[in-house]
Structures are given as C-alpha cells and as structure tokens.
C-alpha cells in the first residue's frame, strides 16, 4: 500500500462539492429570510406625523417673593402643540430595509497525516541432537519356521529446529478538515427593492423625487 495512493483516494472533489452545495443552500435560505423580512416591513404600517407645530406665547406667572419686600414676576411660556394629521407609512417607506448577507470567501483546508511502518524480524535456531537408537533383534531359524519374527535392525534419529519469524505492520492515518467562510452584509439587490417616487403637489410646479 502506498501513501501516494492513499492521498489520491481522498475525495477532494466530493468535499469541495459538498462545501459549495452547503454554501449555496445557506445563501438561498438567507435570501429567503431577507425577502420575508422585506414583506413584513412592507406590510407593517404606522402613523407618521411629519410635522409638529409648536406655538410659544408669553404667559406671565404669579409674582414670587424673593425677600426684602421684593418680588419677581417669572416669564411663563404657554406652548400650544399642533401636530399635522398622521399619515400611514410602511416601515419600508419610512426607511427600514431588510439586511442581506453574502458569502464572500470560503476556504476549505484538509490535513492528512499518513504513516506506515513495517518491521520484519527473523530468527532461527537449529539444534540438532542426534540420537541413534539401534535395536537388533535376532530371529529366523527355527523360530521363523514356526511363525516367529525374522531378524531386524531398527535405527531412529531425532533432532529439532526452532525457527521464529515475526512481521509487524502498522498503519496510521489522521485527518482534519477546516471550513472557513466569510459572511458579509451587502446592500439589498436593486431588483428586490422598490423605487419610491414622491410627487409633491404642495408646491407649484409639483416636484418629483425618486429614491431607492
């Protein structure tokens, strides 16, 4: 087994595809959430009072004794407030816009550490012990005539050999992966946001103001 082959077996393509797929899915969900926010802002109205007129008129108060037989007359002020009629504005018209996010940079980092070790040891021990055991049996003659054994010689040898083989193979693989993405707030896409066209007919000639 070669380490180079193991490195080639790492599914880099699948990992990058999975990462890209996850980022694309996340981006789609973020955009969907921003669009939902846009709908909420466009559907939430509040009473907007564009102008409040305050009229200040003098309103002298009762004289105050400051001692020594002297009095001071404080200058009071009467404030009359005239709010203009409220107009219904949506939060979007008022100036709240949904926040959009975008993945601007993604890094995938894979670290793999492979190591293999092969230990082969061989030892042999030959121990030859020679034992000769010879047995001579006499026979034949009249005995063999009556079915007895014939004469024979038996010799036996014995010896032993010790052989020890050991092969140790170790293989370790360690891996770690790191995914780092940068998510940045971006301005709303132009096509998502309505344009506000304000026609002010209070002045002559009417003015038209267009804002994004």
């Amino acid at each position, binding site marked *: 087994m070669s380490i180079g082959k193991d490195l080639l077996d790492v599914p880099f393509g699948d990992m990058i595809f999975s990462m890209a797929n996850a980022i694309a899915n996340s981006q789609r969900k973020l955009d969907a959430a921003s669009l939902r926010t846009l709908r909420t802002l466009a559907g939430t109205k509040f009473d907007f009072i564009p102008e409040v007129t305050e009229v200040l008129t003098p309103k002298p108060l009762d004289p105050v004794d400051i001692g020594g037989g002297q009095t001071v007359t404080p200058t009071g002020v009467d404030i009359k407030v005239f709010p203009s009629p409220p107009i219904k*504005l949506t939060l979007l018209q008022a*100036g*709240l816009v949904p926040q959009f996010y975008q993945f601007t940079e993604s890094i995938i980092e894979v670290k793999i550490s492979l190591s293999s070790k092969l230990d082969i040891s061989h030892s042999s021990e030959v121990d030859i012990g020679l034992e000769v055991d010879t047995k001579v049996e006499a026979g034949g003659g009249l005995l063999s005539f009556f079915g007895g054994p014939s004469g024979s010689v038996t010799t036996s040898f014995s010896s032993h050999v010790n052989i020890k083989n050991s092969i140790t193979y170790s293989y370790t693989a360690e891996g770690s992966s790191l995914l780092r993405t940068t998510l940045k707030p971006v301005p709303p896409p132009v096509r998502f946001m309505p344009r506000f066209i304000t026609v002010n007919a209070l002045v002559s000639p009417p003015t038209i103001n267009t804002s994004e």
Partner: protein
Amino acid sequence: MAVQVYIVTLRGGYTPESSRDVQRFVRGTGGYILMVTRSGPIIAIDDSRAALVARNPLVDFLGPVTLNPSGVAADTLTRIFAENLSKQIDGGGGSPDPNR
C-alpha cells in the same frame, strides 16, 4: 459582540399580551426594544443571542433589518430608536409606546 437590529413577528398575530411577553423576553436576554409595531417589536440584540429569541414559542419570525438613511422617515425612526434605547439603558424602566 455584534449588535444587530431585527424585526420580530408574532405567532398568531399581534396581541398586546404576546407583544409584552416577547418584549420582556428580549430584555431578559440582554436585548433592547427600539420600537413596537403592530407586527411585533423592533429590537436590537447581540447576534449570538438572536437565536434564543427566534426559538421563543411566541415568535414567528426574526428578520434582520437596517436603516436606510435616505428613507422618508429615517430621521424620525432614528429619534424614536434613540429615545426608547435611552429609557432602557438608563434603567428608567419605561416601556416603548405602542405603535411608535
């Protein structure tokens, strides 16, 4: 720590009780109520705690928003946000006015 502004919509629609409960919950998690609308409160809260609010059973949706300075009432919104925020930072305990 990054504080972000969110609009909260309420599950089952707006009721004064549910709005108040959500506001209390937001304050309990370290957030601030910038404005209360008929959809739900507009809050400022740390990003890391926004998920807690989103998981509240009374909350339907939590959407991040930002202020467009060229909006018709951007200045007014800024003033309302600042007023309500100052009440909470000073510990005045004042509740933001509904529909403001």
